[in-house]
């Protein structure tokens, strides 16, 4: 049996709202209409046919967005600015975000066509949508990414992509099962660490023995009390799979605080600074050392007078330190006097940074720079670290089994129960 190569799939099958085929219907309609001879001037707009750098509607990627807060808005604007995107749907549990998002999209296209949703499942069920971007709090990522894959959508998911160790393999499996392009959302991995990446990939450090990542803090349990709801928000949906808790503006703030003033600080919704900035810094470290496809086999917990710190040991001999006293962020210990053969540094495909890379891959079915598997492996470092610090002990990690070896308590922290009716 021979499958068509991904790149050779018919254009109208390209982005694979592959199930029901309404996406096909839309394109087939436009193509059929464009060759019709009767009434064409009145049916087909210049926008539909394309002009300049704006492809015809049948060649645009039809997109929607879920979670249009601080990061989601930035992502949305990046996609909305592209001529090869037709942005048709937006979803947020906050009324203000949802309405502002719809207004932004309608203004972009000078129409009122964008559909706004409170429930992401309605957006994902639309067969005409090829791809979605997700920028909700982290406790929603896995459920939404997997559901998007089940619905045949390609996905750009903001970092940190996972909240627990168990979520990652399930997200990767869903992406692979349905042949979806799923890109993680750290642009910094490629863009911020070039001064380390380029010499490392050129072999100038020799064999890298270790690299240090300084990032934090750890997440904290949130026990904030009830506040009057000063905004219109579907609170039950915001909490989703997380434990019930009363509304509190700090609990659900989308600000970038990791010190108690936003959801990024709290363990029910985030891995704290360890995942929030760790997605960037650990991602940069694994890129510099070219271990993006690997997970460590051991995390060693150190507690001494000048602080607590970790050493992640990889099967290939590399150690990634976390917060090692006296070490700078991304401080590299190489092998003096050794010059390794250089290798080309991976780069984004297409144009427009990480967003362009994703869209290029949606069209070509190539693997994006921040493929979900690499993103998951980065998050694993942060999660392992959080667990080791919480338990205050060293842990052996069996990456193949996705379990800790000989530590039943640690294995209880690999995942968490989800509030009904949500499940992975």
């Amino acid at each position, binding site marked *: 049996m021979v*499958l068509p190569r991904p790149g050779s799939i018919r254009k109208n099958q390209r982005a694979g709202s592959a199930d029901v085929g309404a996406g096909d219907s839309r394109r087939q309609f436009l193509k059929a209409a464009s060759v019709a001879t009767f009434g064409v001037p009145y049916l087909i707009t210049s926008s539909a046919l394309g002009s300049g750098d704006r492809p015809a509607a049948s060649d645009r990627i039809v997109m929607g967005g879920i979670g249009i807060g601080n990061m989601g808005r930035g992502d949305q604007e990046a996609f909305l600015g592209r001529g090869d995107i037709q942005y048709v749907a937006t979803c947020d549990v906050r009324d203000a975000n949802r309405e502002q998002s719809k207004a932004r999209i309608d203004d972009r296209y000078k129409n009122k066509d964008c559909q706004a949703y409170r429930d992401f499942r309605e957006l994902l069920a639309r067969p005409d949508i090829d791809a979605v971007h997700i920028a909700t709090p982290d406790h929603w990522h896995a459920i939404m990414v997997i559901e998007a894959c*089940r619905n045949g959508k390609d996905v750009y998911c903001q970092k940190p992509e996972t909240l627990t160790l168990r979520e990652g393999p399930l997200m990767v499996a869903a992406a692979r099962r349905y*042949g979806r392009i799923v890109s993680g959302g750290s642009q910094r991995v490629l863009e911020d660490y070039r001064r380390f990446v380029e010499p490392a990939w050129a072999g100038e450090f020799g064999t890298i023995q270790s690299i240090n990542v300084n990032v934090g803090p750890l997440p*904290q349990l949130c026990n904030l009390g009830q506040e009057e709801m000063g905004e219109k928000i579907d609170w039950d949906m915001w909490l989703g799979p997380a434990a019930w808790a*009363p509304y509190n503006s700090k609990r659900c703030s989308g600000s970038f605080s990791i010190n108690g003033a936003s959801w990024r600080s709290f363990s029910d919704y985030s891995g704290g600074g360890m995942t929030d900035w760790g997605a960037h810094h650990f991602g940069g470290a694994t890129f510099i050392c070219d271990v993006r496809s690997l997970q460590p086999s051991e995390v060693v917990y150190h507690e001494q007078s000048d602080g607590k710190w970790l050493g992640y040991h990889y099967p290939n001999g590399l150690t990634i330190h976390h917060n090692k006293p006296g070490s700078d962020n991304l401080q590299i210990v190489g092998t003096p006097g050794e010059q390794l053969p250089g290798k080309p540094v991976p780069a984004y495909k297409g144009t427009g940074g990480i967003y362009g890379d994703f869209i290029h891959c949606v069209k070509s079915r190539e693997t994006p720079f921040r493929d979900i598997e690499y993103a998951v492996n980065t998050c694993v470092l942060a999660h392992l670290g959080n667990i080791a610090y*919480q338990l205050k002990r060293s842990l052996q990690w069996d990456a193949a089994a996705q379990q800790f070896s000989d530590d039943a308590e640690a294995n*209880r922290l690999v995942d968490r*129960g989800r509030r009904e009716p949500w*499940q992975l």
Partner: protein
Amino acid sequence: MLNQAFEALKKFDFGTPLSELQAIEDAVIGAHGDSTLRSDLEARLIAALGTDISRDAKDYVCRKLAVIGSSAAVSALADLMSSEANAHLARHALERIPGPEAAAALATAVTSLNGKLKIGAIASIGARGDAAGVAALASLLQDTDAVVARAAAMSLGSIGGSEAAAALQAAAQSATGGKGFLMDALLSCAESLLRTNKVEAATAIYQSLAGDQPSRLIRLAATRGLLACAAKA
């Protein structure tokens, strides 16, 4: 300090500083490797669940029992399964407590509960990945409540293996409505079989899904699976 923390637990609620319970947190971590300490602490946590403490305090206790709870805690946790306020974190603990007692408590909950709480129990059986839960879930695949049937299918997919796959295939053959969630769970089972080198069984599932399926997404997924099987055969 620990006594003070348990005293504070009696008045603990949303808005109370978590620092008041820090001694319990420390004791949970410190009990690692000390079965006596652990049993004593577990007993105090179980006892607290039986008192008139707040919803938040019970949730906190469930979170701790999720780390150190044993079969001794199952009964107290199972009692919370019918409470809309505490069912989630009680399940969170039960999902993590090894042994047949916790599995049985969840299976009982599936038959006795309704609505979201029932769905939660179904999800927890799947999260445990315990093959002993297959029979209880299989009977729900034909449930008249489509949400229950979908949850059962997803949990069977999480458990994986031949027995779960057989239940899903039987349900798929007799289903008259949407089958997407059954197909997705079957694909998940096939992947679990392939991971454990049961290539023949995985191939059979993929073949059943690659043929005359109305869903192109499922057909392509099954075809990808067949290629993976061929590469492993």
